[in-house]
């Protein structure tokens, strides 16, 4: 983004404080969970989650989804805290918060599709990271979940522009990124970066938000950004996109992100992406039912 656009955009979205605030309990909770494992107090975390009935209920619902905790039934908040562990719990808490960010009534696309895409990208990124043994896989879920944070900014603070870009994307079967670039001169990557900066998210997450459509422009190591780029593409091609089909043909091995990821993970060379794609179809059904249950609450 050039400096003129950057300045203009900053003034347009200066109202970032108008974004939905984090639930009061979430900040202290996330701080608790960032402590070293031996310093995390299970009772305190349990108590904090239990303070907010809505968060507690959504935590339990997600914790019992096979996407997060296979084959184990969790009935109490304490049980969820113990069996999921700090990292999983942090991922779930962010997920419950992210659902609350939906700008209800101002969303020109199907909001359920947006959450399915965000959860889908988080889970697919995480599974891909595990399959190819990406270093530091614990970072991946949040990066996938928040990669399209800029769409929330656009829908909340720039609803008219977002609506026109979304209509262009649907009518022309192109990605939102392409539609925004063509119609607005900026994209959700730019606005997402502004909010990520405002929220002081980690540099890794900020990079993913800003460069997930242009991983080759990432300053420094681009493995994480490339992984989210590929997961994002896979989701959009396997029914976890924005509720419309993008008319595109992708040869993943020829994509810029593939070679960037391969620099970080040489074993990508032997990765069976055809099988991984088929596995995703099952995950997609589960993600849809999880999102449906989260929305129905």
């Amino acid at each position, binding site marked *: 983004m050039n400096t003129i656009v950057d300045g203009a955009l900053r003034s347009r979205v200066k109202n970032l404080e108008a974004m939905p605030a984090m639930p009061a309990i979430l900040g202290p909770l996330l701080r608790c969970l960032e402590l070293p494992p031996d310093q995390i107090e299970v009772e305190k975390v349990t108590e904090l989650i239990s303070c907010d009935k809505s968060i507690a209920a959504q935590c339990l619902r997600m914790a019992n989804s096979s996407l997060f905790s296979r084959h184990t039934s969790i009935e109490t908040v304490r049980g969820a805290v113990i069996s999921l562990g700090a990292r999983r719990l942090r991922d779930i808490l962010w997920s419950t918060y992210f659902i609350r960010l939906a700008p209800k009534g101002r969303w020109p696309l199907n909001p359920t599709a947006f959450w399915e895409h965000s959860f889908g990208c988080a889970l697919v990124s995480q599974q891909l990271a595990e399959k190819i043994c990406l270093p530091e896989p614990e970072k991946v879920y949040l990066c996938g979940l928040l990669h399209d944070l800029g769409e929330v900014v656009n829908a909340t603070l720039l609803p008219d522009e977002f609506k026109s870009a979304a209509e262009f994307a649907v009518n022309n079967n192109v990605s939102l990124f392409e539609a925004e670039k063509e119609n607005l001169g900026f994209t959700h990557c730019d606005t997402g970066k502004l909010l990520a900066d405002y929220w002081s998210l980690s540099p890794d997450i900020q990079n993913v938000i800003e460069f997930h459509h242009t991983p080759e422009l990432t300053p420094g190591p681009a493995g994480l950004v490339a992984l989210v780029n590929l997961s994002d593409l896979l989701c959009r091609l396997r029914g976890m996109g924005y509720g419309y089909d993008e008319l595109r043909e992708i040869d993943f091995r020829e994509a*810029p992100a593939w070679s960037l990821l391969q620099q970080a993970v040489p074993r990508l060379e032997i990765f069976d992406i055809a*099988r991984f794609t088929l*596995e995703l179809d099952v995950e997609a059904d589960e993600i849809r039912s999880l999102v449906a249950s989260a929305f129905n609450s």
Partner: protein
Amino acid sequence: MTSSPFLLEQAGRSAAPPDPSLVRIRDLIYKACGIYLPDNKFYFLNERCSRRLKPLGLRSIREYLDLLSSPKDAESEVRNLLNEITVGETCFFRNPHQLDALRRIILPKIKAAKEKLSFTRLKLWSAGCSTGEEPYTLAMLLLEECSALLKGFTWQIVATDLNDLSLAKAQEGIFDAYALRNTSPLYQQKYFQRRGPHFAVSDELKARVSFSRLNLHDESKLLFMKDNDVIFCANVLIYFDLTSKRRIVGHFFGNLLPGGYFFLGHSESLYGVNDDFHLVHFPGATAYCRPPGPSGGNSR
């Protein structure tokens, strides 16, 4: 298109952890034939494996896994198991995502490339066409494009199968209503005539498909199947061992024009079979492309 390798409608996900023996059988099937049965098909796989226990005098899936892993029995028993997990039914418009990719992405792309060279011929091959549902579907799809996308083009659909009975039924062109369950009323009216409880394909459709018998093991005949733009070969390769599969897929590669596409069944892949083809993703579908030259996809 031969019969589907398994019914997608089968069985929901079980909450219990899958039997480790079934997980290994699933991997074994994938290695043997490239068919991947996802977690929510374990119930189905269990049921089909169980059918094999009695004739083999076995008592458990674990024993069956041992048999499938033994060098002596593995090959023949994997084939038996594949026959069990193969459900003998197909229909028109069976894989809408593949057909969508063909109509909306592949055909316009191939057409544009051919027009640059002043070529106006198009050839599609349905290899393993069974009773004809797939090639007739392709013919309907192309007929619909005749006055727009394919204006000025001539096209040909070749359909082959090994089984004489299947080919006879395909050429007869009489189908029951179940085979037309994915066919829109408009297409039913346009391309079929009602004959009591059955549907007969129209003469126009019949004239567009040329059926012939072909054994994919017969290399001398495969050499004459050249110059295809798109080849469909769904759920056929599962019946061949890896060596044969590699040879046959090599022929498919050679029989495609550069820039041509090769479609397998929904859950099949060429992993470990062929490295010349490039796997490409379309919305909801994958295919293999014979590279036209150095080029990448649009991955933004």
